[in-house]
Structures are given as structure tokens and as C-alpha cells.
């Protein structure tokens, strides 16, 4: 049984300009102990999908199954069990901690809400801060006294408090300096090997995803275009969007960078208010044909062993 299983998940927002289908039928499985990287450009709905799993945004359709329980229709207290299994790390280390709470109070919050006693909570907070490499006097200090990387560690400690099985990492290192990024990534990997926690790792930074993910899902305008093992996707991307995305990532070696074939995408991500009919990628796809403007592709097995949603691979 997979830890997390999404079936045709939909999230839509009613805005003044019309209905935005931020997540438009996503199906995905995440196994125990696995790290799944969710990549895509800004505005493709990857963060919204993460928030939908946390039930931070209303889910308008589909199933979100956590260890056999569909949490999509649940609300309020019914979610207590799921909250212990799934936690989240946020993007902005400056915004994700209450500036008027001490670090100790922030980290203790999930424990207090779960009904832990004061003594046990204090002990657990000490342990958590040690795990993430913060000095123990950190707990009576305030977030503004810490650097971005340290604050992200505080956020990680808070997410770990109840020993969750899955942590949704919403761009956890995007706001950090490159030098600090590696430290936080290494910390996440250490915690994974120590506690067997799974990650849904949302990022637009392909080099980070290549480093940390076991499997990768590529998202575009609310739907998945390609899902597969990291090596399958990096070595032989099948979907034209995945190819363009990987080609756009910078390469450190200038010789290799000059030598490679590049498909550069034209234009911007279409407005999710008014997505093109058929395949949402047809307006920018180098391979687009008449069929793409009519029929929406679905995920199906392709040559590299992964799954891709394209009519022509």
C-alpha cells in the first residue's frame, strides 16, 4: 500500500475573472520512504497541490488517500489523525515562523495541540532542536535572531515534532543562499535515512530535485505531464515539456552546455483562467499537431519506463 495516493485530485478557485483550475485531475502515488520531486514552472499548481494534501485549500474533487483513508471529504477534528502523519515545511523561512513567538513555542506547537504534557513537550523540543543542529538555548530566542538557514531548520524541527511519515516540502530551499541550501538538503536526507520519513519535494530548482528525489513528477498548468524514476527522466525525458524544462536548467561545465541541443520554449505559461483546449501545452509545444488542440492526453507508460501524457511519444 502506498503512503499517499492521489486520484484525480482537483482544486479550483472562483475568482472575479472566472474559475481557475489550479489542480486539474492529478493522480500520483508515493511509497513509504520515497522522495518524490514535484517540478514545474511558477504558477503550474505544484504548491497548490501540496496545500491540497494538507487540506489548506479546499479540494473540489478526487481522492487524497493517506494510508488507506481518503481525507478529501474530511474536515476539522476528523483530520487530527492525518495531521500527525503528514506535515509541511514552507518556502519562506521568514514568514513561516510567528515573529512574536519564541522558537521553543513555535516548535512545541504541534505537540501542545496533540495534548502532550509540559514536561514531555520541553524534552521533545530539546531533542528536535538537537536533531536539526540548533543550540539548545535557541528555544527562548525569537526568529529574527536567526539566519535564513537556521530558521528553515526551526521549521523542519516543527514539522518533525510528531514523527510524521510524510513531509511536504514546499520549495524549502528556494529562499536560501546556495551555500546554506546544501546544508538544509543534507539535513533532510539525514533525517530521511534516520527516521524513514517520505518527502513530497516541491521545487522549481531541477538541480536540487535531481539530487534528492527518487522519483520525479513534472507538472504543467494543473496536470502531470511525466512521472517516473529520476534517472529515467533525467537520462531520457520523453515528454516535450520535460525535455524543454531540463534543457533550460543551467549546466556547470561550459563545454557541455554549448554542445547540448536546446529547445527553448516560446511564450509564457498560458493563463489558468483560460487554458488552451486539448493539451494545455499545445500553444508552446514544438511537436503540436491538430489532435493536440482537441484531445487532452492522459498519463500512459512510455519508452523509458516512465509515464507521460503526450499523444506523440
Amino acid at each position, binding site marked *: 500500500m502506498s503512503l499517499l495516493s492521489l486520484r484525480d485530485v482537483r482544486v479550483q478557485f472562483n475568482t472575479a475573472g472566472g474559475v481557475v483550475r489550479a489542480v486539474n485531475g492529478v493522480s500520483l502515488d508515493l511509497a513509504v520512504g520515497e522522495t518524490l520531486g514535484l517540478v514545474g514552472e511558477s504558477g503550474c499548481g505544484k504548491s497548490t497541490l501540496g496545500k491540497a494534501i494538507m487540506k*489548506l485549500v479546499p479540494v473540489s474533487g478526487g481522492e487524497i488517500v493517506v494510508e488507506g483513508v481518503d481525507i478529501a471529504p474530511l474536515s476539522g477534528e476528523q*483530520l487530527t489523525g492525518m*495531521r500527525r502523519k503528514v*506535515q509541511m515545511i514552507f*518556502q519562506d523561512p521568514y514568514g*513561516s515562523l510567528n515573529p512574536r513567538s519564541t522558537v521553543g513555542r513555535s516548535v512545541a*506547537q504541534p505537540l501542545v495541540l496533540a495534548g502532550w504534557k509540559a514536561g514531555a513537550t520541553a524534552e521533545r523540543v530539546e531533542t528536535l532542536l538537537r536533531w536539526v543542529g540548533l543550540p539548545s538555548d535557541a528555544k527562548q530566542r525569537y526568529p529574527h535572531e536567526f539566519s535564513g538557514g537556521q530558521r528553515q531548520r526551526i*521549521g523542519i524541527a516543527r514539522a518533525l515534532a510528531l514523527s510524521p511519515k510524510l513531509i511536504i516540502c514546499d520549495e524549502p530551499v528556494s529562499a536560501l543562499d546556495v551555500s546554506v541550501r546544501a546544508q538544509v538538503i543534507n539535513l533532510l536526507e539525514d533525517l530521511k535515512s534516520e527516521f524513514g520519513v517520505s518527502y513530497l519535494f516541491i521545487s522549481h530548482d531541477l538541480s536540487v530535485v535531481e539530487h534528492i528525489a527518487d522519483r520525479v513528477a513534472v507538472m504543467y498548468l494543473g496536470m502531470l505531464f511525466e512521472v517516473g524514476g529520476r534517472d529515467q527522466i533525467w537520462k531520457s525525458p520523453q515528454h516535450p515539456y520535460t525535455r524543454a524544462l531540463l534543457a533550460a536548467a543551467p549546466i556547470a561545465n561550459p563545454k557541455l552546455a554549448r554542445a547540448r541541443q536546446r529547445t527553448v520554449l516560446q511564450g509564457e505559461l498560458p493563463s489558468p483562467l483560460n487554458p488552451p483546449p486539448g493539451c494545455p501545452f499545445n500553444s508552446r509545444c514544438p511537436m503540436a499537431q491538430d489532435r493536440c488542440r482537441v484531445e487532452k492526453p492522459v498519463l500512459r507508460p512510455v519508452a523509458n519506463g516512465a509515464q507521460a501524457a503526450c499523444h506523440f511519444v
Partner: protein
Amino acid sequence: MQRFEFLGRFARNRGALVGACLILLVALMAAFASVFFPTDPLRIVGLPELWPGEDPEFPLGTDSLGRDILSMIVHGARATLLIGLFASAVATIIGVGVGAIAGYFGGWVDEIAMRAAELFQTIPNLIFVLTIVVILGSTLTNIVIAIGIVSWTPIARMTRAEFLSLRDREFVQACRSMGMSDFRIIVSEILPNALPPVIVLSSLVVAGAILFESAVSFLGLGDPNVASWGRLVGDGRQLIRSSWYICAIPGIAIMITVLCLNLVGDGLNDALNPKLRDR
């Protein structure tokens, strides 16, 4: 550490410092009124209409009945300040409550709350206060409640604006993802962050409340058992041509106190606003 920084920033604004000192003086005067003037201030103690300085026993003179004006001012400070503080507290409680709920939940809740606030704002404040006092009766409590009811709207708007900007911040989402209840998020997470500008506004409402109470008392609708400064002005108004000091002295007291409260409000604004910190 943080607290000292705050005091330092507050003290950098000279006007605020002077204001705070004078307010403190008035507050001390109010607190120890019965020590300085143990007798009832409304008792007749001397000749009527003695001008200030005419009799050294009554440095600020006596009113038309022969009551000591200094004693009445000192005792009146207590009533005036208490009315101001409590009316501001009532306004702050209503305003923060309505604003927090409107800003946090949004949607139709927000719509109803803001339309209600607009309704209150369209009614002329003084007439509204007078109406409430006339209907409920001229007691101190009713006057405080009436002033609170007309003064809560700016506080509600300010609180709502703060909540709107804070409710989607990631630390609030983190709390929601832990399953924290809405009530707890509002009170223990967002409110502490939303309060600084609200405190500034509340301090200004104290000044406004003192003026409202003075106006109510001047019109003779104040609590007859309380000698607030507004009532002293009102009592003296028949003699304004001959013995104008009876009106002027409590009037000056009101003016200075309100001015100082505004200065303190400005100082709090500077000290609590992090964007002005380094100026």
C-alpha cells in the same frame, strides 16, 4: 532588551515624552486626589466667584456656589481619565473582535461586518452618543458604553486590515496544517502581530472619548453624581461673561490632556512601527 529598545525609540520623540510625562502627572493627580483634597470637591467651602489668586486658600478660585475649583479639577481628573480609558477599552474590544473575525474569515462575514461598521460611521457621532445616553439614562456606565459604541469603527477597520495581511502568511498556514482551531489562531497567533497599530489607535480613542464626555456633560446630560471636567465647563457656562475662568480652567485641563494623549499616540506609532525604526 527589546523593551528598553522600545522605550528608547519612544523617548526619541520629544513631544511624546513630554506628553507621556504630563499624562503621568494627571494620572497621579487622579490617583491621589483624596490625599490632596480629602473633603468632597462638591462641598461649598468659600465665597462664590473668587477669581484665581484672589484668595490664597483657593489658588484657582471658586465657582458660582463657592466650591474650590482646584479640588474639583483634581477630583475631576479621575472621572475624566477613567471615562476615557474605559470608553477606549469598550471601543477596542468591540473593534478588535469585529475586525478580527471580518478579516480572518472574509467572504460574507466580512461583508456584513463592514456594512455594519459603515452604518455606524454614517450616523453623526455626537448625536448618536446623546441619543444612547438619553434613552439609557445618564449614568457613568451608559456614557462609557455609548462612547465605546460610536468609536469602535476605525479600530475594527485597522484590525481587519492587519488580519487580511497576516491571515495568509506561512506561519498561520503552518498552524492550520497542525490542526489549530480558528479561535486559537486568531487569538494567540495573529492578534499579537496585529496589535501594535491598534494600540496606537486606542490611545487616540482615549483622547476622543474625553472630548465626547466633555461635550455630553457640557450639554447637561452627564452623570449628575460625577464631577468630570466636561461638567465643570458646563456648570460655568451661565457665568461665561463675568467669570469666564470657571469654564476656562477645566477647558484648559481638557485641552492639555487631549493634546498629550495625541502626542503619546504619535510617539507610540513611531516606536511600534518597525519601518520608522532607523530614522
